[in-house]
């Protein structure tokens, strides 16, 4: 047995020995199909994986032409004839080692080995069951496309290509995961992407040696720096149109086979407040919606904490009407405000978690039981005061306006509540300073997470705090390089 320069086991030229090796390496797995036959006077074997290829395509496009080949002098001539005279499929890679051979078989290729040949020919006849293109479930949109990514990386690549037909769009396939051997695809616009950004991302990917890549979360940490960051400096999207807009701005994307999401690098804080609908409506309405989302984020994080702080430590800040109203409501509640607020927020989180994990029809029932029965009963029994419940509902509602930041909002809301409940507005201010610094410290590949606000970049403000008209936006040729602080 010989190994190639990458240390992989080379294919054996003797058919019997090669088949024995394949059986040994696959451990006799039932889904590896080994079909021996003779064509052109040479003994061959067609290898495939059950369920990964389309039987009909394989039979019509590969098996039928293969069995009709006239007499050849040897395996080398046979493969030469197939390569030059038969176009059995568009995707025709070759394998010289068993590692590549198994990756091809398990990716849905039909692989042909022959007695006397130390290479294998593969034919793309993939036909595994996959989910069709559906509307994205997490990124709602009114005016844009209703197509979302699917679990098949090649379908996702085609969705990008359909929207960006320019030859500048490059999609590089590679394999990651020592066990999962997952296809990942690096996408970028060659004329827009900053060269150093691409180089650094490629380096990060090549240094990443995960065992498996089963979701974006398996690879994102390898693309971000290691320090503790509350917010992620890589983004995800399940919309091909959103991804295309990011690629045009010079960002890099990573598609992962088996995952209907794309990773976008770099990602900025302000992008969590953008939606594709912003570009479908008039600029004044887009600006209004964006600022509404910023306000909703602050309400979601700070409202319960500010309420607890003011009621507990700074009641003099309330006007008399409000003070009487709150005092009246809170005097009947049996629990201290801080405990009461924690109770309501944690109950909400439990209900949300139950609604997400349960099957959809049951999840709906959970919402009804929790919202109507428990909420109503808690207020009527006096366990929770109505103002606090209203404040909590408003905060939760605010979080829904920025779904991208849901995990951070949930944790920060609880932390700020604790700070406000223990140290009043002073505690909230201290925590705000720490959180603000954490956000401002986030910077990957030289792109500050808080750009273009701080560091202030005038070029970026046209599509951040405001939204320019589409004519101006299309003319300005903006790329993410404008935010780069490392290479300037």
């Amino acid at each position: 047995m010989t190994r190639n320069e990458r240390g992989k086991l080379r294919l054996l030229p003797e058919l019997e020995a090669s088949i024995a090796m394949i059986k040994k390496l696959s451990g006799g797995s039932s889904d590896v199909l080994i079909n021996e036959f003779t064509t052109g006077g040479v003994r061959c074997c067609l290898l495939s994986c059950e369920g990964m290829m389309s039987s009909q395509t394989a039979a019509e496009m590969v098996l039928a032409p293969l069995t009709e080949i006239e007499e050849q002098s040897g395996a080398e001539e046979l493969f030469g004839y197939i390569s030059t005279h038969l176009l059995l499929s568009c995707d025709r890679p070759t394998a010289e080692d068993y590692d590549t051979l198994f990756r091809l078989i398990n990716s849905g290729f039909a692989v042909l080995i022959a007695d006397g040949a130390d290479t294998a020919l593969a034919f793309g006849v993939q036909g595994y069951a996959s989910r069709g293109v559906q509307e994205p479930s997490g990124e709602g949109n009114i005016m844009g496309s209703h197509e979302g990514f699917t679990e098949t990386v090649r379908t996702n690549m085609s969705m990008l290509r359909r929207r960006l037909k320019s030859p500048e769009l490059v999609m590089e396939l590679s394999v990651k995961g020592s066990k999962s051997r997952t296809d990942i695809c690096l996408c970028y616009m060659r004329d827009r992407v900053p060269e150093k950004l691409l180089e650094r991302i490629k380096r990060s990917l090549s240094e990443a040696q995960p065992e498996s890549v089963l979701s974006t979360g398996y690879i994102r940490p390898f693309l971000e720096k290691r320090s503790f960051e509350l917010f992620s400096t890589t983004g995800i999207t399940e919309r091909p149109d959103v991804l295309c807009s990011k690629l045009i701005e010079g960002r890099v994307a990573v598609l992962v086979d088996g995952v209907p999401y794309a990773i976008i690098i770099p990602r900025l804080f302000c992008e969590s407040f953008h939606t594709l609908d912003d570009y479908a409506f008039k600029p004044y309405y887009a600006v209004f919606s964006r600022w509404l989302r910023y306000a909703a984020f602050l309400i979601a994080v700070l409202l319960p904490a500010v309420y607890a702080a003011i009621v507990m430590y700074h009641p003099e800040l309330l006007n008399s009407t409000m003070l009487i109203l709150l005092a009246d409501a809170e005097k009947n509640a049996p629990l201290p405000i801080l405990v009461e607020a924690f109770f309501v927020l944690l109950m909400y989180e439990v209900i949300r978690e139950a609604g997400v994990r349960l099957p959809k029809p049951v999840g709906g029932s959970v919402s009804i039981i929790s919202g109507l029965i428990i909420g109503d009963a808690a207020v009527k029994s006096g366990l929770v005061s109505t103002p606090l419940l209203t404040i909590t509902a408003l905060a939760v509602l605010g979080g829904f306006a920025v779904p991208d930041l849901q995990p951070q909002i949930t944790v920060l809301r609880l932390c700020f509540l604790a700070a406000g409940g223990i140290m009043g507005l002073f505690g909230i201010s201290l925590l705000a300073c720490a959180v603000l610094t954490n956000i401002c410290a986030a910077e990957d590949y030289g792109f500050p997470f808080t750009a273009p606000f701080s560091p202030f970049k005038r070029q970026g403000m046209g599509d951040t705090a405001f939204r320019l008209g589409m004519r101006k936006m299309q003319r300005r040729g903006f790329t993410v390089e404008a935010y780069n602080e490392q290479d300037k």
Partner: protein
Amino acid sequence: MNRISKFQLVSLLLIGDVFALFCISGSISAMTAAGFAAGSILQLVTAMPLVYLYSRGSSPASCGRAVKLLLLAGVLTWGGSLFAMLRQASSVIYIPYENKGIWGSIAVAGLIALVCVYISSSGIKALARSGVIAAALGAVCIAIVVVSAVLHSEPEALASAEGRSFSGELLRGFALSGGVGSFAVLLGFTDDDVSDSAVLYFICKAVISALVILTAVLVTGGIMDVSGFPAAMAAQLSQPFPVQRIDSLFLIVFSVFAVYSVAVQASAAEYLIGVTFPEMKKFRCTAALLIMAAAGLFPFRISDHTAISAAAAALILLAAPAEHLIRKGALKKREV
């Protein structure tokens, strides 16, 4: 590279100066505003040799050990003063547990120090970026207070408020800017033109000082005698909205400015400790904050020692150029 822009530098330094103004005690008048503005311009003039030195490639790290130690002492003293100011001003700004004796003060100072350790450990870039946002928040708050003061104040308060003479206020303005130590350090971090940065900082400082003091005088002019902290009281008294008080906004800005003022001093001290005592690899920031917090427990008021503080500020600004001249003279002598 840990470089910051001139706007980031100016924001960081102004936060400390405005916080010192929030905590200013004793009576103030229109003369105080003029004195503080003139004091800032005088500081700019005093800082010119240092600016010239930096523009020729020098930095705090290239100064002699004595100058570094002087800068470090200045930064630590001002940091301690900030803690003291915070403790003194908390009699009008309600901070839970602050008035519960010495342990309350220690707890509050400890919390601020803890946050400052985190902020400083995130690096000068993160501090500068977040400082700009904090400064913007403060600017909005000051704008609200100023608008409210202009709408509700009586102009005759400007004339009725009694203060010191112009020279006395000039000295106080010069002395209350103990932040010159951090200015001398952070100026070396800017990637913009050094002289532009310095001019921008001192002019902004002059304008903002005058604005804040005039607003405070306009609002508290009539009751200046009973207001311990005129600027803080002005924020409490000027309410632009008929149904909602805005003290909360001021309390938040006050706390945020307190944290950033201390964090700037801590970062400057951390850097100076690093270049003065290179063998000290860890806990530089923690050590600096411990010294500052401990110094803050002493009942020291800069306004009670204006002459000494003003002399110290001038010494900090002139030490590096003076050392450079002495070194140059010695070198020439040796060559001769």
